[in-house]
């Protein structure tokens, strides 16, 4: 009983922190305003606000997906990036850019979504034996495809050097082109997806103890797995289709939460939502304000900030991952 109340208190505190950070981050930027001007400026309403909301949504979704993959596959190295879903999406985006579809509202994003889903289907097809999933094969297939796809993208860039910069920017991830369209696209996916994952968070604990153990403790293992994998793939694919590949968030955020508060997914999942959102929001704010008027790729900021923090936590913590 006591434990459960704590989850609500901590979640509420994290939510307050997140809202405060969103307000603060909306105030900083290359163009400076006082408060009156800010609320009337189209820069705030059409550029900054959707960008802030989008980074929060994507951060929350990527972190939770990483947490789910780590439990479902019982492997601490798993995240959307390692599984190859992110790079699958980047392939579609690169193709769309080469074909000159950037101007079209759905061009790059739609193509990214399509290839991401294609990639995950291919990986699952290779790794499934009967109705079970072989984790090592799954990870190796994901890693192989990531290499293959990055090779293909390099070839594309070498052939069409005029498009190089926009492809690079996409493969490194950026919220620079965030729009209200992206926000309205992601909100329903995020709400449904995050709710589904929270609903199954106790099952995730049992899956972590081994799929046979989970089954003998009353979990419908294959059904739960399939649902979780479907909803998380959808979340990753939609995220990547709006902002490109952003690594490190999905891997590191759930681990950081785990190192601090233990292995219980009923805490890891909700906390990861807020911490992931906060983390990506701050990283993106840094990306757009560090060297004005230029933009930095947000993926490099997440690694630059996240990696040392993660190593520090690993070093300090007595718990293994």
């Amino acid at each position, binding site marked *: 009983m006591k434990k459960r109340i704590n989850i609500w208190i901590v979640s509420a505190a994290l939510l307050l922190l997140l809202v405060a950070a969103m307000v603060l981050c909306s105030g900083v930027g290359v163009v400076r305003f006082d408060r009156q001007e800010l609320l009337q400026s189209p820069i705030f309403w059409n550029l900054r606000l959707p960008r802030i909301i989008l980074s929060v949504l994507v951060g929350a979704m990527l972190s939770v997906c990483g947490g789910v993959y780590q439990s479902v596959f019982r492997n601490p190295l798993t995240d959307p990036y390692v599984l190859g879903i992110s790079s699958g999406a980047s392939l579609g985006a690169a193709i769309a850019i080469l074909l000159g579809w950037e101007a079209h509202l759905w061009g790059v994003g739609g193509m990214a979504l399509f290839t991401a889903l294609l990639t995950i289907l291919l990986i699952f097809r290779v790794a499934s034996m009967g109705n079970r999933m072989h984790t090592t094969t799954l990870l190796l297939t994901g890693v192989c495809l990531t290499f293959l796809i990055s090779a293909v993208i390099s070839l594309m860039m070498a052939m069409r050097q005029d498009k190089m910069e926009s492809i690079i920017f996409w493969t490194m991830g950026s919220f620079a082109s965030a729009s209200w369209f992206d926000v309205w696209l992601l909100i329903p996916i995020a709400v449904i997806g995050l709710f589904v994952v929270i609903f199954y968070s106790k099952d995730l604990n049992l899956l972590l103890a081994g799929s046979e153990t989970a089954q003998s*403790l*009353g979990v419908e293992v294959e059904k739960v797995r399939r649902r979780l994998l479907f909803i998380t793939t959808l979340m990753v694919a939609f995220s990547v289709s709006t902002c490109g590949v952003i690594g490190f968030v999905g891997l590191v955020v759930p681990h950081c939460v785990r190192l601090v508060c233990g292995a219980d997914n009923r805490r890891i999942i909700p906390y990861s939502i807020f911490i992931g959102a906060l983390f990506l929001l701050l990283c993106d704010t840094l990306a757009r304000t560090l060297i004005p008027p230029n933009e930095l790729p947000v993926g490099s900021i997440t690694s630059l900030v996240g990696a040392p923090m993660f190593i520090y936590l690993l070093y300090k913590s007595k*718990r293994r991952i």
Partner: protein
Amino acid sequence: MIEVRNLTYSYGKKEILHNLSFQVETGTFHAILGANGCGKTTLLRCIAGLLTPQSGTVNIEGRPTASYNPRQLAQRIAMVQQHPQTDIEFSAFETVLMGRNPYQRRLQNESQEDWSIVEQCMKLTNTWHLRMALPSQMSGGELQRVMIARALAQQTPILLLDEPTSNLDIAHQFEIMELLQDINQREGKTILIVVHDLNLALHYCPDALLLHDRSLLFQGSTAEALSSERIATAFGVKARNIDGYLRIER
């Protein structure tokens, strides 16, 4: 009562169990005996509903296991696996609490009843003092007792154990077997246990199922199951029963 009818199970083309039929009465303590690879673990997993046999059925309380959903089955059968997972970060208490899962709804808190059942099961298995310990901090015997506590927390009428003593020294083997004997006698739980050590089985398990060549060679009292002839057939070794102790030689 567990009722196995015409059970056949094969992995791919390799048949492991062939047309097995037997009944296990409620409240009995059975050892499942047999040479390596004769299908003891497979039989246990079929009974637990973890494997679906190609033909035949396992009936629990008069209904085939396939007709229960995993939750209902987990309220009737608890299983202790051969190799407990050591690489997870749940404390012993959290691990045992998982045994209450079949009785909980999703998003629901643990009830006061869950907590007290967990405490009771951990005290019974002498693991209460380890409640904050992680699997990596426990010895093999301690971890095995925690796994038994989790199975007890499921409060099932049937308890299945797959070689729970295989990695333990002799004193801890006795300890586990005495614990099971106690549970069987006091609570009337039906226990099926896969054992390799024939003397351990002879000493603690009143009844036995002896498997040989994909089928059941004998069901009855353990002393009868472990006669010289049956041991010769099932294991290919010579054995003599001297004052209730088996002397085994090649």
